[in-house]
């Protein structure tokens, strides 16, 4: 009825009912629905990640329960100072990431680029510290495999620096060999976490490049926001790795 009148009168047709911003996909009713759907999807992805890391955490707790003395001396090989420093670095990077999301939401292009760059640098610092720690493990032959050495555990006094701090008693050879299980899990867990950091840092480089072109400061913040969720998730994994690997076995 109204259509025919419009044609008859020669008046231009009314503006389309679904006027929407260019970044809204056509299969969504509104921006709100699109934002909800994407963040729901992101959370579902993060839940699969929780299950993945959760498997590693569970394995760690089971083996720690079985080979407790080996896990205690194994964890004495880790540096509390580096571990604490890395935790602080990662929390700071989560803070700068959260500020980045705020800058995107309030359309501050310079602020967004700065925050993402800081997050990028802090991520690299974390990996740098991790590399220092891993290198030390390699030097002491604590990387599981053919070159693994139980020297520090059957003869703790030979490992002067660690012995000074913990005064560990020598372990019988069969228990000492199980420190390899501790280091397997150590490398699996910190390695998977570091892989997530590498992926995150790569995406950050892309985000910085796009943010400099003004991509995320015109109202469409979904990508930055969901990447933020990923980055905070990686932070949470470290929040649990730190006490499990470094702290809980210090007095075992």
């Amino acid at each position, binding site marked *: 009825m109204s259509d025919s009148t419009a044609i008859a009168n020669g008046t231009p047709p009314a503006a389309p009912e679904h006027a929407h911003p260019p970044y809204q996909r056509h299969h969504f009713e509104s921006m*709100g629905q699109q934002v*909800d759907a994407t963040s*729901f999807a992101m959370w579902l992805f993060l839940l699969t990640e929780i299950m993945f890391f959760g498997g590693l955490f569970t394995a760690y707790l089971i083996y720690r*329960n079985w080979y407790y003395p080996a896990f205690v001396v194994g964890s004495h090989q880790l540096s509390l100072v580096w571990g*604490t420093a890395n935790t602080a670095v990662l929390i700071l990077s989560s803070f700068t990431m*959260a500020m980045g999301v*705020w800058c995107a939401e309030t359309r501050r292009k310079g602020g967004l680029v700065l925050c993402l760059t800081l997050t990028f640098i802090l991520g690299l610092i974390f990996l740098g510290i991790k590399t220092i720690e891993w290198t030390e493990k390699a030097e002491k032959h604590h990387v599981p495999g053919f070159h693994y050495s139980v020297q520090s555990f059957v003869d703790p006094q030979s490992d002067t620096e660690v012995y000074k701090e913990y005064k560990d008693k020598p372990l019988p050879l069969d228990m000492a060999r199980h420190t390899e299980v501790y280091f397997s899990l150590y490398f699996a867990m910190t390695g998977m976490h570091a892989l997530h950091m590498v992926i995150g840092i790569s995406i950050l480089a892309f985000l910085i490049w796009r943010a400099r072109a003004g991509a995320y400061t015109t*109202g*469409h913040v979904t990508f930055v926001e969901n990447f933020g969720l990923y980055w905070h998730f990686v932070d949470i994994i470290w929040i*649990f790795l730190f006490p499990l690997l470094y702290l809980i076995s210090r007095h075992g």
Partner: protein
Amino acid sequence: MTTHQEHDKVGSGHQQEFHDAHDTHDHIVSPRIYIIVGATLLVFTGLTVLASLFDVGVWNPVLALFIACVKATIVVLFFMHVKYSSRLTKLTVFGGVFTFLVLMGMTLADYFTRAWGRW
């Protein structure tokens, strides 16, 4: 209360009255909160390291993991905006974590008790 109603609206897709200006980001968390949260997380990190210096037996792991849970909850609620999110997101996060805890709890309960009564 008004914020609650707004969130409900965003949370349920079948409701038709969306205000486009409102939808894109219904709640912007202020930098003040981020600063407080970041500082709190650093303080808790210090606390957990401090606690690890004292030998309190079985309470060492309990305390360390409790502090880790508190820190993770703070990150999820504020940095990850779950406190300000739709009910769908809240339910998703809670459902996922709950399922994970059930899986882990039952697995650990099994493994930790297998040798009971055998010595």
